């Protein structure tokens, strides 16, 4: 038992937090060049 949960349930618990951290890094990390390029593509 880890924090009162078996390994399988704990994996889900911890994966949730990893997913949240990943989403924060992905969403807040600026990718200006790629997005500018995409905008130019669309306009073109």
């Amino acid at each position, binding site marked *: 038992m880890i924090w009162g949960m078996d390994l399988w349930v704990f994996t889900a618990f911890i994966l949730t937090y990893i997913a949240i951290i990943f989403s924060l890094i992905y969403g807040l990390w600026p990718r200006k060049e790629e997005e500018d390029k995409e*905008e130019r593509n669309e306009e073109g």
Partner: protein
Amino acid sequence: MADTVTFVIMLIAYSAIMVYIGYRGYKATKGATDWLVAGRRVGAWVVALSYGATFISAVAIIGFGGQAQVFGLQLLWLSTLVIIVGVIIAFIVFGYRTRIMSKTLGALTFPELIAKRFNSRFIQGFGGAVIAIFLIAYTAAVFKATASLVQITFGISYETSIIVFTIIVAVYLLLGGLFAVMWTDSVQGLIMVVGIGLLLAMVWASLGGVIPANEALAALGPAKYAPNGLTSASSFGSVSFMLVTSLIFGVGIGALAQPQLAIRFMTAKNAKVLRQGVPIGAIFMFLTVYVAFTVGALSNVMFKNNGIAIPTSADLVIPTLINSLFPSWFVFLFLFAILSASMSTASSLFHVSGSAVGRDLYDKAWKKGLAGQKSMSVTKIATVVVIAATLVLSLYPPDAVAYLCTFAYGAIAATFLAPFVATLYWKRATREGIIASMVGGLAATLLWYTFVYSKTASVITHTNVAPPLGLLDPLFIGIPVSFVLVIIVSLMTKKPEEEHIARAFTGIS
């Protein structure tokens, strides 16, 4: 029973805010692009909150929260999957391409995107019909769940609740189209986050924190559908394992092809909006679904500690917990969070079903495309018809509605997921392949529900297929069938024109 007068006053204030947003939407709506895809100029917060609030209905909070009381914390896998698949993968893998391709092809509905990519009126008509049939039934179920909660909490009759909710949603939706829907969704999403998020904080606080709460839950020992304990997974291959994995993967994967969610990608102003929407959507899911499932499981401890009998129906677990153990101010807050969850889902379902009937089925498939203003009027009239039909079905539900609602999620996922993937990623896919995939995926799912899936087959055709086959969610049959069909039939038929493919994939690297 909580104070009915206070509830009515708060409901009037709440409705006034929603209608005001509807009016703002009305001022911003000039044509079909505004009504159907909010002018393709929506920002990150509204796209992500609207996506989340549409995704998560009262059924997800009350229904699945109740299921967590039965299955225990192993249901946390579902919230993990909702965050990873339902938000992160959906936005990154499907979001960007859906936005660009729908803009390039001028598609204003989800079936229209697939139809324009493959030059087929049949695809649009068939897609529209599937959405209309199943989502109207699903909307009726969403209203039913909320009205039942209001009835339990405030003693307001079921019929009155249904009629009042329908009128409120109808007013703001018909005023402002998708602008109104998405902005009200966002406000409702924030109410959900506060009301539901606070619930877990209060439950954890009363049980002494995360670890003591889990230990107290584990100490309760095995339960019927959690034979290894309420904080442990079921043994591989057992009935409870089949039930829980079927539920988790069914809901998680099925989320990828729901038209009411996919349409949100078409409304994003630019790629940056979708990127920034990922963390907002993920945190929203965490504060709603993850909370509901954790609280549902921990309700076992709360009921035991306070000497309250566990309700016999899973749907009554969360309402009983709130009404018996929380202060009245929180009962109001939570009820408005649930009301918001229902209204945000219902308004989006009305919108997508109305455009399916008006634009996809009547305008584009049957009439081969009406002129500008006439096309808009048809969609609005169809939305009114859809709302009226849902109201009647909610008040006088025939048996068929219960089945259509059960089938809805799986049927829609099996009809659209493979064609959606092929639309965005497979240039060799053909019109014939897509049609075979849609029809075949839907047929396989419905046949499985009718003859094999024990929960429905035992009632509809009185057939009893033993586990594990009888417990296998129809989605696990329908989706593979539709993928196999799109691949085989596409490879057997003539390659699509290169010029059309080049145009459809413009701006997609």
